[in-house]
């Protein structure tokens, strides 16, 4: 069985984000990148399938700039246990979901995987659309929001998917795609020996003709800095002032 896992590089959650000079992108200088956590879980899950079955190959596909920080994200996935990785070169990762999905689909088509895994959403833009569009473009059924390990039969896949207010049990034939929720597995510690082995695994760079994004980001703004609370007075006398401030300053009433 061949499993392809789509991984997006995102800024480390611990990074202090700065808006770039253009005002609509993140300044990536000095930003640490990590695999988006749901994607990383999908990689871990794929590797666990590999450990429990014979003859499973796990291939990582990402789209992003051909630079050291992207490669590091891929090495991390290879260290978890994936066999090889493909980097679709693009200037950034801020394209609209359709553009990204079509580039991914073009590359994945050549790999013809039996199972295609995604994290449910990337934690930077939170679009959550790439899995649906990519699998649609590849004509693969999608099990969306899988919350527990799949039941992998000889010719079918069964998955428990969480939807608003309930659970759907979906079954599909191979090949099929699934997007993964946080509860499916947990990330194990990664010993240095696996990191070292990963350094010898293949990362193939492919170039992509990206379509123009229909969607563009106009402006990015950091949330306003939180200011501390304030005591406006004590006892019943303070109530009118409190109301005034809530109405005029905080504008919540």
């Amino acid at each position, binding site marked *: 069985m061949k499993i392809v896992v789509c991984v997006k590089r995102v800024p480390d959650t611990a990074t202090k984000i700065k808006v770039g000079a253009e005002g609509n992108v993140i300044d990536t200088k000095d930003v640490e990148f990590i695999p988006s956590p749901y994607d990383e879980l999908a990689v871990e899950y794929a590797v666990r399938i590999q450990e429990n079955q014979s003859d499973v190959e796990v291939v990582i596909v990402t789209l992003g700039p051909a630079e*050291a920080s992207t*490669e*590091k994200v891929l*090495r*991390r996935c290879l*260290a978890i246990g994936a066999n090889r990785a493909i980097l679709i070169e693009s200037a950034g990762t801020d394209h609209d979901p359709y553009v990204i999905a079509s580039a991914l689909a073009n590359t994945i088509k050549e790999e013809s995987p039996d199972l295609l895994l995604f994290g449910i959403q990337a934690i930077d833009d939170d679009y959550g659309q790439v899995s649906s569009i990519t699998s649609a473009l590849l004509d693969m059924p999608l099990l969306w929001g899988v919350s527990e390990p799949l039941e992998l039969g000889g010719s079918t896949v069964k998955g428990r998917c969480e939807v608003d207010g309930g659970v759907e049990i979906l079954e599909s034939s191979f090949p099929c795609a699934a997007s993964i929720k946080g509860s499916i597995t947990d990330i194990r*510690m*990664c*010993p*240095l*020996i696996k*990191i*070292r082995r*990963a*350094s010898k695994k293949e990362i193939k760079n492919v170039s992509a003709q990206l379509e123009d994004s229909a969607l563009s980001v106009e402006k990015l703004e950091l949330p306003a800095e939180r200011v501390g609370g304030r005591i406006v007075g004590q006892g019943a006398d303070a109530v009118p002032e409190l109301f005034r401030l809530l109405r005029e300053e905080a504008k919540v009433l």
Partner: protein
Amino acid sequence: MTTANCIEESKKNQENHENPSEKTEKKTKKKAPFSFMKSAFAGDIAEEIIFPYPQQSKEEKEETQLFLKELDKFCRENIDGAQIDLDAKIPPEVIQGLADLGVFGLTVPEEYDGLDVSYTFFCQAIGIIPRYCASLAATVVAHLSIGTKALYMFGTEDQKKRYYPKLVTGEWIAAFSLTEPQAGSDASGIKTSAKLSEDGKHYVLSGEKIYVTNGGFASFFTVFAKINSGDEEEKGFTAFIVTKDMHGVSIGKEEKKLGLKGSSTTPLLLDNVKVPVDNILGQKGKGFKIAMEVLNTGRLGLGGICAGGVKKAIEGSVQYATQRRQFGMSLSEFGLIQKKIARMGVLTFAMDSAVYLTAGLADRKDIDFSVESAICKVFTTECAWEIINETVQIFGGSGFIADYPYERALRDARITMIFEGTNEILRLFIALAGMRNVGEYFKKLGQAINQPLQSLGFLYEYFSGQVISSFVKEKINNASAQLSSEAAIVQKYIPLLNQAVEKSIRTHKKEVIHQQFILERVANMAISIYTLAACISRVDSSLRQGKTEADLDQEFTMLKTYAFIAEASLQENYQSLTNNCDKEIQKVSAFLCAAEGYPLPDVI
């Protein structure tokens, strides 16, 4: 290690440098460059050794960063430093977790399932652990940096096959056992004896070792003992592998300590222990050299621990100083607190620069870095002490209270200035190892004086300063123009260091080894020169990688500040060579010793 030992140690290191291992000799073919600091003592600025600043390869950097992240996560989630301090015990799961990550294989060759990482990698990795628990860091480095290091450097294939499988998994913990009740700094005074058995198969070891880190749970001991033998070659001492399961090995009671309470420190008692002759590490009689080479790398590792560990104290200080308010302002708005915070940052910048320059030199494997690693040890342990002490001060009363981690950090940091060579002994070593090189030169000069006719030219040249200027480089050409005023400080003080050394050798001749007031100042000058040169090289390399001065605003500002600190120290130490109250110091000390206490009556 006495003063005589210092000279001995410096000789060993030099021999080592003159006979680089065959492997490197074949590879490079070129004569290995000398040490940067030993050259500096001779007035030579061997800048090619420190420029460009060493860089990890892209692959190694990636591997290091991925591992550091993993190690940091493990430590954050699994280590409770306060509890370990209270229980005076590290939970076995923590050791197991580190073993699973591969920590015990960091310094084991790949053919024995180890990872054999570079010093640059190693120092970064062990710099993570003390941020969570210094006791654990001490335990780990006692195993990796000193316990198993002689096996790594001098072990036979057979010895490695026998012991690595258990050591690499952490199943066996290792310890290094040199110190004895009567032999601490003066390691050559050890009394533990080794006597060849009649059948020639064993050495019978007897003696008492003390202060063995990991003693309580180690299974593998690198033990130093003196062979009782008339053979000149075998005199001096010898390193043995002793395992806990050998008959006659017993472990004494755990010591109660000021700090590092979670680490184990015990005596090791050897009562007629039969150690197979196959367990000798390296050559018989060469134990001192082995111990010194092990400690040489151990000191660099300690530098990694200090430079890494203080970052946690800085984080705490900065967080507290920005949040805590007094007089209606946050502490960080007060100049006196800013001074403390800035100094923490600048010293850490210098610590990192020196440690990773030295680690890079060590990784080249063809260069003598013994003086440099001793500098790193003295400098980083004293900076760490200062930084943690100031952290306690910034926290005010809370710093003293055990609910906060800083009283523990202060207790834990204290020992670093004592073990792996006390900072006093290492200052003597730095000065004497550097002077020995210059001393060799004077020997040549001595010959010249005995054969005046043939050597007239030589003497004339020397006294006119031509010899020096003919083979010595006095300028730094490699540093970028933006760094010229900092480079000028190094350029000014290397010749002054040389002058100071030459003058004291000329004045005191062989007795110079007992002139500790001078030696300390010379060592302090060497420390400032090396650490500043390391900072310059580091910033220079960033500039050469295409960064601009504006990109490097933080680095430039730290460098400028450190240059100011270093220059002040250089000035003070240089001037006090001639302008001092050494005589009075000796007298006052003598008054107190004679009076067996404070000699004057209490003032009413």
